[in-house]
């Protein structure tokens, strides 16, 4: 396969970036997208040029670091996957592919395609946990919970923090990410106790970081690799309104 790549190159957060075009030949259609970038980087290193910086770790869709914008869509043209799960067979021989970092005022670029997602970490630190003392795992049957509730909480917990929701949202809103954690914990007996104070603190932090207003376009759900539902946002709003009325 032959591909023409337009890749965003930027030296630092403050430097001005620009697209650079590269042509790769003899690619295997079963290569993953990141393997294709590896091939490109090997060629660049051989030529003595600086390789393209991109985030990646697990390469199996669980760490959430590899997100980039591919031809104008988060994680590329296929729904429900991360960039590392995308393969060249999703493209045609001779295609031109534009690769940009996830963009939002809250996600500063570190270099090339690598962005700083620490704002997400600070939202979680603000309250995305339960403050019970840790210790060895308690007897499982001492807290009763139905299968459906456990499954539903697990669906919310599936968020891998990739940032595709923010990158896809025209408003750069982090509502899906933040609400996933809020409703994950609110659905479980252990997390329920602190639900109100948690939602207030996490939403406050989300605003402090400068994420936009959620306008319920639901684009986030459509592009989320883990299929996290927008109903988590509804539950976040519910918990928030409850905290407003009843106090945190």
């Amino acid at each position, binding site marked *: 396969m032959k591909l023409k790549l337009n890749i965003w190159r930027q030296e630092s957060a403050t430097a001005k970036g620009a697209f650079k075009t590269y042509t790769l030949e003899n690619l295997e259609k079963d290569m993953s997208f990141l393997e294709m970038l590896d091939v490109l980087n090997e060629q660049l290193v051989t030529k003595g040029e600086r390789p393209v910086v991109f985030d990646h770790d697990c390469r199996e869709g669980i760490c959430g670091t590899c997100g980039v914008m591919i031809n104008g869509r988060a994680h590329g043209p296929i729904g429900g996957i991360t960039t590392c799960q995308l393969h060249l067979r999703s493209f045609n021989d001779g295609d031109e592919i534009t690769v940009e970092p996830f963009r939002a005022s809250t996600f500063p670029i570190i270099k090339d395609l690598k962005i700083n997602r620490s704002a997400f970490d600070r939202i979680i630190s603000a309250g995305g946990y339960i403050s019970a003392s840790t210790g060895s795992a308690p007897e499982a049957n001492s807290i009763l919970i139905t299968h459906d509730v456990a499954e539903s909480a697990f669906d919310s917990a599936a968020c891998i923090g990739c940032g595709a929701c923010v990158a896809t949202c025209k408003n750069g809103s982090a509502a899906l990410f933040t609400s996933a954690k809020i409703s994950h914990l609110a659905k479980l007996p252990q997390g329920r106790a602190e639900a109100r104070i948690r939602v207030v603190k996490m939403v406050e932090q989300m605003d402090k970081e400068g994420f*936009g207003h959620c306008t319920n376009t639901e684009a986030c759900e459509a592009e989320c690799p883990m299929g996290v539902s927008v109903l988590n946002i*509804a539950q976040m709003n519910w918990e928030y309104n409850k905290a407003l009325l009843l106090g945190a």
Partner: protein
Amino acid sequence: MIKLTLLRKLLMALTGLFLCLFLVIHLLGNLQLFLPKEIAQEQFNAYSQALSGNLFIKVVAIGLYVSILAHAIYAVVITIYNRKSGGKYAVDERKVASPWYSRSMGLLGTVIFVFIVIHFQNFWYYYKFTDMPLDPWGRKDLYSAVVNLFGNVWYVVIYVVSMVAMGYHLLHGVASAVRTLGVYHQKYVRVVNVAGVVYSVVISAGFAIIPIYVYLVQHQERLLTLLQLK
């Protein structure tokens, strides 16, 4: 000024839903315009007079003006803020992930706002602040004002186009507002989504048909001749 994003959203949702409730009452009142002229003129003018003299209505009306202004002001605040926080891409195909009207609420709202200004000038200002002609029963003849205005095809066009914009605004707005209030159970969300679509279509079509109907009735002779049906 409200600082928190969720509080701003809550304000948008509450004012928006209040306006939605008002639209139902407004449409029901306007249905009198479908009556034959002899009945409609007296009944509609009596209705208008009763409304403008009623204290309860006056209080609600103030709530209405405040809602429209607060809704529009915060719409601008939110839209500007979101423009800054959202990313821009050289190649952008994000539109496949959401319907166009959900991304165009500011634009649709602006069309509605311009319409509201025209609409207030057409009827509200004319009724309240001018010495308009009286009907045979001695009441301000709002009915004839409506008929005269919608004799002009351009006003019919302005009103119908605005109602289409409002229809799309509501198509996203109703479901969005209820989401902001926090309805999250799948069962109720489905009910709300269907109800939102039905509401939007019925309300905007209902308002849009009135100018068309009033235009057609007074031009029916001419139109029929034009179509050579007579």
